[in-house]
């Protein structure tokens, strides 16, 4: 008796409330719940590496300045996108991204595979004044990044929080976060060796902003941009085999 039932739940506002929540929750539940078992079907990428503390700090600057509002990091499975930007994005590539930065708008180009495409110096000039290197650009200037000293003292806490949400940072990584951030942007220092030791030999260790004497927000952001799309080789391998077939 739907009629009786509805009249009843409606008279009693609490019942009505439960009905709304119940009806409304189903869709989300049905769609989202299966995604939490998806690791069983998602491609594996054993070579997937973690963000270093410096790169994570750079990622946080990317978030802070709202870059995601104009740049996506998700190449769709469409021919023109693959030809323009590179192999389409795999789910595994953002599995350590809390939160993801897939984006929803391309006022500027996609950045999922921007890493290693331009030199550090290009990025630095581009950030300070985009129209210096790309006259038609409508991107804002980000001059303060080069001026601001990067805050590194709390990076250990950041890594610990990341570990709490499921990113497999080791205790040594958490303990050495500040030192590693400094070391990655200061190649001549004693701290530099520890970075490749903990994050892999392929880790880029250099003065990203061109000035080894200080660690700036520019160092962090450029370090982050240069790693985009290079955390794992899986998409390049997988899609080159697919093309070969």
């Amino acid at each position, binding site marked *: 008796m*739907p009629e009786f039932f*509805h*009249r009843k739940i409606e008279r009693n506002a609490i019942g009505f409330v439960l009905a709304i929540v119940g009806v409304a929750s189903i869709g989300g539940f*049905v*769609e989202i*719940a299966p995604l939490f*078992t998806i690791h*069983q079907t998602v491609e594996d990428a054993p070579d997937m590496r973690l963000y270093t503390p410096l790169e994570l700090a750079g990622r946080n600057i990317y978030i802070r300045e709202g870059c995601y509002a104009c740049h996506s990091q998700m190449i769709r499975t469409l021919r023109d996108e693959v030809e323009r930007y590179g192999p389409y994005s795999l789910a595994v590539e953002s599995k350590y991204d809390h939160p993801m930065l897939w984006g929803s708008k391309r006022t500027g180009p996609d950045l999922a595979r921007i890493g290693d495409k331009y030199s550090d110096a290009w990025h630095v000039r581009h950030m300070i004044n985009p129209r210096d290197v790309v006259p038609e650009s409508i991107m804002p200037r980000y001059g303060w990044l080069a001026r601001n000293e990067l805050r590194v003292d709390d990076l250990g806490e950041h890594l610990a929080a990341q570990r709490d949400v499921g990113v497999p940072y080791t205790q040594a990584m958490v303990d050495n976060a500040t030192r590693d951030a400094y070391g990655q942007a200061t190649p001549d220092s004693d701290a530099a060796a520890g970075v490749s030791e903990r994050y892999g030999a392929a880790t880029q260790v250099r003065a990203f902003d061109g000035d080894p004497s200080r660690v700036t927000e520019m160092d962090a952001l450029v370090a982050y941009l240069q790693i985009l799309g290079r955390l794992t080789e899986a998409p390049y391998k997988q899609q080159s085999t697919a093309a070969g077939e």
Partner: protein
Amino acid sequence: MEIAHDVVVAFSKSWGLFYLVGFSLCVVAYAYWPGNRKAFTRAKMSVLDTDDRPLGDRPLGPEA
């Protein structure tokens, strides 16, 4: 015990559909149930009444 992805997906797909159909039937049945006509007509007209102050403590409906 781990639940297999395929099972969760299959459940989502099938059960979601049955739920949708059953639910729609209930809603339409409710909206067109003859016994509700009076209440709906009353509600429909009620917003047009002048309403410059709340009603007193005596509730309106006979069964409320």
